[in-house]
């Protein structure tokens, strides 16, 4: 009889897995084990808490779990049956249950056959108009397909990394390496003296590590020419060929909203990594709300990823579309940003043009807050790619 419960939990685990959570067999087994503990579940909420503790492993998945739980275990008499371990298998009949509008991923996981039954529909195109943006700009919620990266581009990204080195400061860590005139290395000294009575003392000194680097890259429409290269650059920085002296890199992209992409860029293969980002980012080549995105960064991420010795790389053309309030926010958030890192470098592709003058209001708001305003082609790769794109 208990098999019914086990089957249901297993099925539930499968639904969560299909919805994108990493629920392995071990977690399902753990959940089953937890459900069998004496003194455990006393009410419906406990059942949910038990499953949550065993099946969730990161904060972002809580909402997804919540929805899935209420849809999957929506039997009103649940508790009594769970306690009796007599729960019949949940029948997912396509006609009776409606998919939740909140989460398409979940809907697909729960109702995998829907598409097969219904005639294939065109993917829904959503246009969102934002009052803050000028009329012509709008956020296009669509996913861009990237071409793959050529070996030359990959080499360029790596070259760009070496050029970036001088900007990054090293700092001592609490780990040690032999040599130098630092502290006495007791372990090495002792070992040496065990072999030879009069061996000289060995020394060690702190290992150095490159200070963290945070990349905030604009991927709005006006930057679209550079965006892909930027992603490759960020990927190259996060996955350098030689593993020694790797800076800790945190990458974010923003258009109308901020998206952390460090995790996606961990993927070794640059093309797969960039493809993953493209799939994830919803506001590719849309409008820009720099101020609002910097605000989101400051509020949610700055304290987590910025240290007092971090270098922040803001890649944007600074073309903020918005009213006076938006510009004021931009200046305010930029100041906040500068206060939370060691150096704020602004890479601006617009500086490429001769006779560039900071006339745009957004640029004027940002300018006093950055430590350096650099043309993006200081990273030779960026410039070369731009040339390449312009020629095509």
């Amino acid at each position: 009889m208990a098999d019914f419960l086990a089957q249901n939990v297993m099925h539930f685990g499968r639904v969560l897995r299909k919805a994108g959570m990493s629920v392995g067999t071990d977690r399902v087994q753990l959940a089953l084990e937890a459900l069998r503990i004496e003194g455990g579940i006393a009410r419906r909420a406990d059942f949910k808490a038990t499953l949550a503790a065993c099946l969730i492993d990161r904060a972002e998945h809580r909402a997804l779990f919540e929805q899935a739980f209420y849809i999957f275990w929506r039997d009103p008499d649940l508790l009594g049956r769970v306690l009796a371990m007599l729960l019949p298998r949940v029948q997912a009949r396509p006609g009776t249950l409606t998919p939740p509008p909140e989460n398409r991923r979940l809907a697909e996981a729960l109702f995998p056959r829907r598409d097969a039954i219904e005639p294939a529909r065109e993917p829904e195109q959503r246009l969102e108009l934002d009052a803050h943006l000028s009329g012509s700009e709008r956020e296009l919620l669509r996913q861009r397909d990237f071409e793959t990266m050529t070996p030359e581009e990959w080499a360029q990204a790596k070259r760009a990394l070496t050029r970036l080195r001088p900007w990054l400061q090293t700092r001592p860590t609490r780990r040690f390496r032999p040599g130098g005139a630092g502290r006495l290395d007791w372990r090495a000294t002792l070992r040496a003296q065990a072999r030879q009575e009069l061996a000289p003392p060995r020394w060690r000194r702190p290992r150095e590590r490159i200070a963290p680097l945070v990349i905030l890259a604009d991927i709005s429409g006006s930057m679209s020419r550079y965006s892909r290269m930027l992603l490759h650059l960020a990927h190259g920085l996060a996955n350098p060929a030689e593993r020694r002296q790797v800076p800790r890199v945190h990458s974010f992209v923003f258009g109308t909203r901020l998206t952390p992409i460090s995790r996606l860029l961990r993927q070794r293969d640059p093309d797969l990594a960039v493809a993953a980002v493209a799939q994830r980012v919803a506001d590719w080549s849309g409008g820009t709300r720099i101020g609002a995105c910097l605000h989101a960064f400051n509020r949610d991420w700055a304290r987590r990823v910025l240290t007092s010795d971090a270098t922040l790389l803001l890649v944007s053309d600074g073309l903020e579309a918005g009213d006076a309030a938006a510009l004021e926010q931009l200046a305010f958030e930029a100041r906040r940003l500068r206060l939370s890192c060691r150096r704020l470098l602004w890479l601006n592709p617009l500086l490429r043009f001769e006779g560039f003058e900071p006339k745009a209001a957004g640029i004027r708001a940002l300018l006093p807050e950055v430590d350096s305003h650099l043309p993006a082609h200081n990273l030779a790769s960026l410039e070369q790619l731009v040339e390449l794109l312009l020629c095509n």
Partner: protein
Amino acid sequence: MAELPASIDATQQGLRAQGYVAPRELATTAFLALRLARPLFLEGEPGTGKTEIAKALAGLLERPLIRLQCYEGLDLASAAYEWNYARQMLEIKSGALAGGDALFARRFLIARPLLQAIDPQANPVGPVLLIDELDRADEAFEAFLLELLSEFQLSIPELGLIKAVAPPIVVLTSNRTREVHDAVKRRCLYHWVDFPSAERELEILRLKLPGIDAMLARRIVALVQGLRAMDLYKLPGIAETIEWSRALLELNALVLDPATLNDTLGVLLKYQDDIAKVQGSEAARLLAQVEAEVHG
């Protein structure tokens, strides 16, 4: 050493007796972690009581609490064990050591938190091991933890394997500076520690400051909850609520007025930008909202 709690209710009540007001869901997770002998992985904003629960569990189970604070560059020597080379050297020089094999004896071993937690000699009862802010440590350290967390054993090349007789009760916390590796999480029971509900916060406040005026406590909680709904850089945690209540008691404040709030805002908010945002008209609006809530 006390027995493990027999039910979720018992866990909740036991924690409360230790001065920790746990929501039902957290009590469930803690109960399961104890019964399944799995580490408890807690994530959440700073100031929501992640570290406190380890202390409460140690008190509830009457076991010692061993705390390992993580930081970048944390290595084996400061987390697990280290040889006391200076002392070894001295004993060699003074001729107190007879043979070479006695050089790596237990008396030269300096046990750091992780070794202390699993060493049957030091802790025959299995202590509560708190690994605080794991996200600050390097990934290499996480990989090292994997073996320790699943086998509760540590091998010291010179001495051999040290294995816990009674496994420690492990609590890991993270502020999400970075994502902790899945392999670590997979060995744990996960719980996101949220800011407390108004009801729970009021209970905490009454528990921590028994003498507090009931109306004042309600106003304090309503105001802090109002602040948490605002768009601030650092939302006030439970510790800030208690600290602020203490400050108000010091000032003999019975009613919250704009002047007192403005003067004491620094206790609740830790960023000048946040303080500037709340001070003045925003404070007055919050107070009006609080009054409406308390009387309504």
